[in-house]
């Protein structure tokens, strides 16, 4: 097994669009946009790939902040951004196709923000 090198840079939200445009111009492909709750903040990671080189950039935002959409640069990014909005409640400005919270319809609004379960306690504690 060959381990893969994965670069990760944390950048400022204001530089996001510029950085993503750089990746686009170099010919990178958008692999993934993922959101993670880290304490009180959200980490949003954008992953790109070119010729099997895998690179990530990350922005860290407070929960009520809004972020610019990258769907103007990568057309297909709307699916990740809408998903992020529906599950985490991250507001994304200027998506090319905005489902307004109707892509994944859930019972609880923004379920991944504060996760809840049916039933109490761990399932099995060894």
């Amino acid at each position: 097994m060959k381990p893969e090198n994965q670069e990760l840079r944390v950048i400022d939200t204001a530089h996001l669009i510029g950085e993503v445009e750089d990746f686009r111009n170099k010919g990178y492909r958008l692999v993934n946009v993922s959101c993670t709750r880290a304490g009180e903040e959200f980490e949003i990671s954008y992953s790109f790939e070119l010729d099997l080189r895998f690179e990530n950039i990350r922005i860290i935002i407070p929960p009520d902040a809004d972020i610019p959409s990258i769907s103007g640069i990568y057309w297909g990014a709307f699916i990740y951004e809408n998903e992020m909005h529906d599950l985490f409640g991250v507001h994304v400005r200027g998506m090319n196709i905005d489902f307004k919270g109707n892509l994944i319809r859930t019972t609880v609004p923004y379920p991944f923000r504060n996760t809840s379960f049916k039933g109490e306690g761990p399932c099995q504690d060894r």
Partner: protein
Amino acid sequence: MSRQIVMPFGPQHPVLPEPIHLDLVLEDETVVDVIPSIGYVHRGLETLVEKRQFPEYVYIAERTCGICSFIHGMTYCQGVERVMGLEVPERAHYLRTIWSEYSRLHSHLLWLGLFADGMGFENLFMNAWKHREFVLDVMEETTGGRVIQGSCKVGGVRRDIDQETLKKMERDLKGFEKGLKEMANVFLNDDSIASRLRGVGVLSRNDAYVCGAVGPTGRGSGVPIDIRMTGYAAYGEVDFSPVVEEDGDCYARCAVRVNELFSSIEIIRQLIDRIPGGEIEVKVKGNPDGEYFSRSEQPRGELVHYVKGNGTKYLARSRIRTPTLTNIPPLVKMLQGCELADVPVIVLSIDPCIGCMER
């Protein structure tokens, strides 16, 4: 200019066993726009990561999708192993690779059958599923499960395959391949299939790249993305090249999958020839602390399992980015401007796996 009407497609639709809902905006018989809406199968299984310990979450990861379940489990395990710095024995890597190639065979045959059914070619559907039973028998013999195997775990694999069974598997591949060749001939050279598929749902190379198409959907449009080339598990030790077609229509995507069947068989042969002896698992000590994007090539395309540990038994986050989710924007592009009668075939041609997509 004629009037526009909105026609619903799904969620329960004869062509797809799974629920997906599309609102098709029609102008006469032509589709001008498509609005997908999902959530019929959404379970929210990523949240269970806070409820199950990391070795147990493998079972949840495997049940993201029943069709490519082994590869889900394996990708998750690879992520956790990388975070924990575990060195998995070579033999375990080989066994994992053999099982994931059998999964690919089973998934592609399943898709070819459903695709033939979608075109109304019932006979071919039955034929593809007859061949698929051979793969499921091998799975059952070696892992104990037909569609959900449960043979992968953090640190290695649960079961070994003895030398005799490996030899038998290799012998049986010959007859299997012969049957597949006959079937492939129909898919690739039959006139009625070609006229149903050629020029339908064209996705240009540039669109495929900008929309982020992966797997056979991307490779059918000439984008040679195959994560197996990174050499995860034992893929670094076998010789193969990604199957790529240039046309970008439904026929090209079908041809990619048909040809991948034979490439998978070739990979399995090489693996069985070269498999080393030794242990099949290592002992897991401690808890994961750190993060990793674990990537692999599923039958439908690139799969990303993001795992983040915080030093406890419970992971902080698992994010599963499945290929079908990524292939939805290309699907929207393909459907714009097609005929209403072609919609089922085009939707099927990306090999949608809704269970995966909505998690």
